């Protein structure tokens, strides 16, 4: 299914740019984590999982780093807006079949916006042990929109979008193409 660009949308990143960025992020991870013996990758549900899948594949296929521990974390039950929104929150699957005790955890999410999801994830991951450290990798950092003192350690692209604008990340597996759009609402 090909995504058709409606009016009022701007392409922030195309497939080629995304590919370059993903490889750069993978290399930056290698620089800090060497052979990933002590490191676990955690994709934040629902949308961070696509990015985490890609990063994990690149590390495996292109850089020969096998057997990286990789999990998916759902933050629904840890969010701070339960009963405050119009729509009830629907959960996604959490799949972490290892203990993160004393591990170096890398959170992976597609867009860092208010920082509240990552705040929830920081609480959620404690249910699986006490990590030695936690880092954050994002594809898009909307840097002027933060509500909390949270910053990425690995960053694809910084975007100075205003609050009414929306950043939409599309993945080949789900939408038929890799691209990032800025949408005027």
């Amino acid at each position, binding site marked *: 299914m090909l995504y058709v660009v409606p009016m009022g949308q701007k392409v922030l990143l195309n497939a080629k740019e995304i590919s370059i960025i993903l490889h750069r992020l993978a290399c930056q991870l290698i620089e800090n984590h060497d052979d990933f013996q002590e490191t676990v990758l955690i994709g934040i549900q629902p949308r961070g999982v696509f990015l985490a899948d890609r990063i994990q594949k690149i590390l495996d296929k292109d850089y020969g780093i096998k057997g990286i521990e990789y999990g998916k974390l*759902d933050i*629904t*039950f*840890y*969010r701070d807006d*339960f*009963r*405050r929104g119009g*729509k*009830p*929150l*629907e*959960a*996604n*699957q*959490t799949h972490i079949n290892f*203990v993160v005790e004393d591990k170096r955890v890398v959170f992976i999410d597609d867009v860092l916006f208010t920082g509240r999801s990552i705040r929830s994830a920081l*609480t*959620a991951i*404690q*249910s*699986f*042990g006490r990590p030695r450290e936690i880092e954050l990798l994002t594809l898009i950092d909307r840097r002027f929109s933060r509500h909390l003192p949270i910053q990425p350690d690995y960053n694809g692209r910084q975007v100075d979008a205003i609050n009414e604008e929306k950043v939409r990340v599309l993945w080949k597996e789900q939408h038929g193409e890799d691209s990032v759009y800025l949408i005027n609402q």
Partner: protein
Amino acid sequence: MSELSVNHLLGIKYLTREDIELIFHTADHFKEVINRPIKKVPSLRDITIANLFFENSTRTRLSFELAEKRLSADVVNFSAASSSVKKGETLIDTVSNILSMKVDMVVMRHPNPGAGVFLSQHVNASIVNAGDGAHEHPTQALLDSYSIRERLGSVEGKKVVIVGDILHSRVALSNIFALRLQGAQVKVCGPKTLMPRYIESLGVEVETDLRQALQWCDVANMLRIQNERMDISYFPSIREYTQLFQVNRAMLESIDKPIVIMHPGPINRGVEITSEVADSDQAIILDQVENGVAIRMAVIYLLASKIKHT
């Protein structure tokens, strides 16, 4: 759909099939949560729940309390034996007093059928029925169906026989509603004196021969004889009941397929079921108990999400 159609869980009768699907889907996530090293999520930290038990309970009460605590709700417990109910206070007064202390949700077990419905019409809180007399026990039926779904893949099209004291059983009634709603076939089996009149009008068949019932079914849900609710003698003796309606190893070996054995507890070992069967691989009795916590977390979470934040 991500929201229940109801604001209270008073009985399966009031639920839709979509509600049950949503509860099961949510319970899947909570089952994963309660198998983590730390079995607790902070979702309900600003919700207070009162557990009002006007009738004895061990399993259900513990299960509800654990479910509430694992959702981080504040919990207050109340049992009729040690309360002002004994001094003559009415149900509405008792509950209104508790709600004045800013309680958001009430989990109630009561000996009178319809107590939950009555309360929901008179007080401003979410009500969860944890058993009302011989009427309904919705969370038990939900966890029973959930356990069948877990073991056999789905409930739809499955053949379930409920064996024992159907007349006095709220578990039976809620199970019949839940199983029929999900497209299962249901038979009830037991002494004729313990069959409610017009039970067929609920879309179930009556079978008085246990062997035939077991031969027919995929799942047998064994119920306890509720002596405490029996005002007269419904059968000559426990020994005779046992001879006709006990599931034992010999009985299971005489049918030509493996069936799933369930029991809502408490078990009277040696009466409706032998220890050998209750402790066998065919029995999913302890899975039911584990699933009970996940199901109750799901119900409470989904109902709490409908309480407006103030």
